[in-house]
């Protein structure tokens, strides 16, 4: 299997590892399949795909493994290694994200940061809105709570003079 082909396979499977939760599931599924490779029962791999692996993942993996029957173990191991190398973008938000929202964020991340990033969503109502973001050792509080705090500090305590854009959250209210 060529490098480009292998990359396509990885990207295809990593579509099912958008978040750290999904990444954990994918790694466990790969481990179960690796174990099944050495099972004495002939249908061990298929039984795992049917019983232990998520449906969409199983479909993709079945297709990939059937195409590369000669080196299934190496393929699974390479998928596992690539999955472990994913960088984590942590987002602390004030709501529980839907799958569609996760996809939206994934699209934004891939277009603005690049591939190889998984999202780690943390639910914290206290942030009110926006997100507290951690990535690659960097931290930034872009929550509404922080904006309000800056505003209150500036108004009440005179700590920091914030701009109007900092004090007032910018979002489109036309949908409401």
């Amino acid at each position, binding site marked *: 299997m060529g490098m480009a082909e292998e990359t396509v396979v990885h990207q295809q499977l990593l579509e099912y590892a958008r978040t750290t939760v999904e990444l954990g599931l994918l790694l466990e599924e790969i481990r179960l399949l690796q174990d099944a490779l050495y099972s004495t029962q002939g249908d061990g791999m298929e039984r795992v795909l049917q019983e232990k692996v998520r449906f969409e993942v199983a479909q993709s993996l079945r297709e990939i493994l059937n195409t590369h029957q000669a080196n299934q173990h190496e393929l699974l191991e390479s998928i596992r290694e690539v999955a472990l190398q994913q960088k984590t973008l942590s987002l602390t938000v*004030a709501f529980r994200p839907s799958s569609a929202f996760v996809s939206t964020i994934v699209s934004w991340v891939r277009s603005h940061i690049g591939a190889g990033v998984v999202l780690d969503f943390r639910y914290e109502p206290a942030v009110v809105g926006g997100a507290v973001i951690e990535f690659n050792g960097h931290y930034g509080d872009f929550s509404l709570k922080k904006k309000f705090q800056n505003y209150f500090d500036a108004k009440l305590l005179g700590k920091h003079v914030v701009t109007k854009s900092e004090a007032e959250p910018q979002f489109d209210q036309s*949908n409401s």
Partner: protein
Amino acid sequence: MFADATLLIGLLLLAFLLSFALIALLLLYSKVYGRVEKMDRFQADLLKQKQEFDAKAAELASAQAQELIKEASVKAQAIIRQAETVSTDVRRRLDSQLEQLPKAQQDIYRDVFKQVGEEAIQVLHQVSDEMKVYADREVKAFGAALQERTAATQEEAKKAIEQSYERMEAEILAYKQKRLTMIDQSIHQVIREVTEEVLGKAIHTEQHQEIVIKALEDAKSAHVV
């Protein structure tokens, strides 16, 4: 008849015997009474003689005592007179012998007396100096001890103040932290209320998503991502 006569004779005989016994008893009583009276008189005589004897003995003893005192006084006066005579005699003899001492010996004695006197004065001066040194040393030691104790007391007071200050500072810090925690806990609620008040409603999911996208864009601008 015969029996009555016998009984009568018996009674007469008994009466006779009783009369005789009574007479004998009276005679015996009279005799004993006389002896007792005689003995009383004798006893009284003896007592009187004893009193007279005691009075004479006391008088005699007093006379003898006065005589003895008189003799003792005379002997004492004689002894005192003799002693005065001896003392005067001894003094006279000593003066005579002193006068007979050579002049050289008198000078020696005088020098010795003078030397002894000077040594005594020197010893007194020396003792005085030693006392002065001792007193000076004691005063200095007392001063040093007082200074040391004062420094220790100051150090203890300083430590006590510092500890008190640290304790107060810790208490203030703990109180401040507690108040900040309370404020931090309450601020979430305040922010929500203010948010709803300012925005007129709660934020919808779509708005949340838009704000998160905006946050990501801000993070990119700030080179966080």
